[in-house]
């Protein structure tokens, strides 16, 4: 479990991005995080991966302060950035997935095995020697996910995973997320497109101006119309119908 206790974050220029966040992310949960632009969603994801450190408060991973175990925590909490192009560092699909594993000092055989497994998992098994720049948006996103999955994290954070994707691309990513959730991974999706994913989530978290304003248990609620005050695009259908896997 990841626990955020009174977490605040302020940039060096004095701009506060998050204020007193108290939140628990349980293992195996599928959470959707939403909020208007500049509400601190991305900063929260970077804090969870240990890439940013809280200015105030603390983040506990299974009861242990995350700051003190940063290299290890990054293997437990994987993050897929909004822009796949900057996430992909390898010049071939294989190289990119192997990058994380080499950092974790896996041996050559183990790297080969894990890369093959994860390429299969994201449906890119025949793409081993392909150049990432020649992949489509959806394929790049899946490659970025595979690069993180290879490091075997328990929690996977995806920042705007549906951005710039066409319908088949969105479906592929969504199927991937559901598959990972079924495998027992905890998923945190940051998105504005609630209608694409909410039917599969357990909880919806809403941020506004750096503050956590709403946590909704989606198993109990049937509608989210009351969230219109938070500048969120509210789909007109029921929560159970908010999926693009139709």
């Amino acid at each position, binding site marked *: 479990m990841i626990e955020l206790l009174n977490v605040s974050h302020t940039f060096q220029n004095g701009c506060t991005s998050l204020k007193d966040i108290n939140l628990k992310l349980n293992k195996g949960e599928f959470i959707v995080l939403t909020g208007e632009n500049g509400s601190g969603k991305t900063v929260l994801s970077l804090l969870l*991966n240990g890439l940013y450190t809280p200015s105030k408060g603390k983040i506990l991973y299974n009861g242990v302060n995350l700051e003190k175990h940063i290299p290890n925590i990054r293997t437990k909490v994987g993050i897929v*950035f909004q822009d796949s192009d900057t996430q992909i*560092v390898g*010049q071939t699909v294989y190289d990119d997935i192997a*990058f*994380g594993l080499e*950092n974790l000092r896996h*041996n050559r055989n183990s790297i080969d095995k894990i890369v093959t497994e994860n390429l299969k998992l994201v449906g890119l098994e025949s793409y081993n020697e392909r150049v990432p720049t020649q992949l489509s948006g959806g394929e790049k996103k899946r490659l970025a996910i595979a*690069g993180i999955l290879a490091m075997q994290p328990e929690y996977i954070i995806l920042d705007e995973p549906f951005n710039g994707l066409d319908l088949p691309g969105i479906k592929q990513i969504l199927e991937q997320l559901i598959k990972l959730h079924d495998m027992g991974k905890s998923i945190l999706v940051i998105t504005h497109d609630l209608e694409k994913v909410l039917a599969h989530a357990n909880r919806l978290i809403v941020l506004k101006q750096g503050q956590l304003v709403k946590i909704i248990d989606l198993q109990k609620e049937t509608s989210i119309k009351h969230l219109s005050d938070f500048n969120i695009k509210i789909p007109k259908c029921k929560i159970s119908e908010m999926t693009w896997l139709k």
Partner: protein
Amino acid sequence: MILFHYIPADSLIHKTNPKTKLLSIIIFSFGTLRINNLFQNYYNFLMLLIVLLSILIIAKIPLRYLLKDMRYFLIMFPIIVLINSFKLSTDESSLLSFISIEGLNYSLSFCFKLYLFSLISIIFIATTTVRQINFAIENILRKFPLVPSVKIATMISLCIIQIPLIFDNYNSIILAQKSRCMDNVKNPFKRFQLTLIPLISKTLKKADNISLNYQAKCYSHTRTQYSYKLELKDYIILGIFSLYSFMSVKLAL
């Protein structure tokens, strides 16, 4: 644009040990550096160019696009020639009152060498992935005590990742500015400012994101190490390059 990009292909050059390729470049550069007289040793330069073009063809790199991309290098050459001609001008062998033949010869040789170095580096980058380059550099430098091999290899590979990004960013900025009628701006300094400032900020932002990504993927200096063992064919390639280098030095003396 294919300049400084890895171009995958099923070729002999792609399959060659990255360490061999790197060592060959070092030997090649050493030999080429010694030739300073283009007017006397023009056949030597010509031979080199033919060799490099043959390697390009074997490596299945699209020659037309590559040479088109390399036009940026040609822009620098007149400036280099002009500056060096002034610098070395002497009274005895002056072509005009201020440009000497000696200076012209030196600067043309310099430009030609620069072109050859660029070409061989581009071939290396086009046929070797950054990961292979990283491990090859690390592998070679590891033999030297007190040399931070991993740090140097990482720095070089990060630079190689950044170069095509800078070119790609430049192209997208130019297109974006042209779409807003930048062509109407006649002042070259203003045009320079309109492209350079966004290019720097975009490149720094990308570099920042790459660094975050490296951290997110647990980058450290204690990574999996690969050993590239040299085989017979690698020794043959190194032998050919060494012979060339030796001949060039001899020719230059």
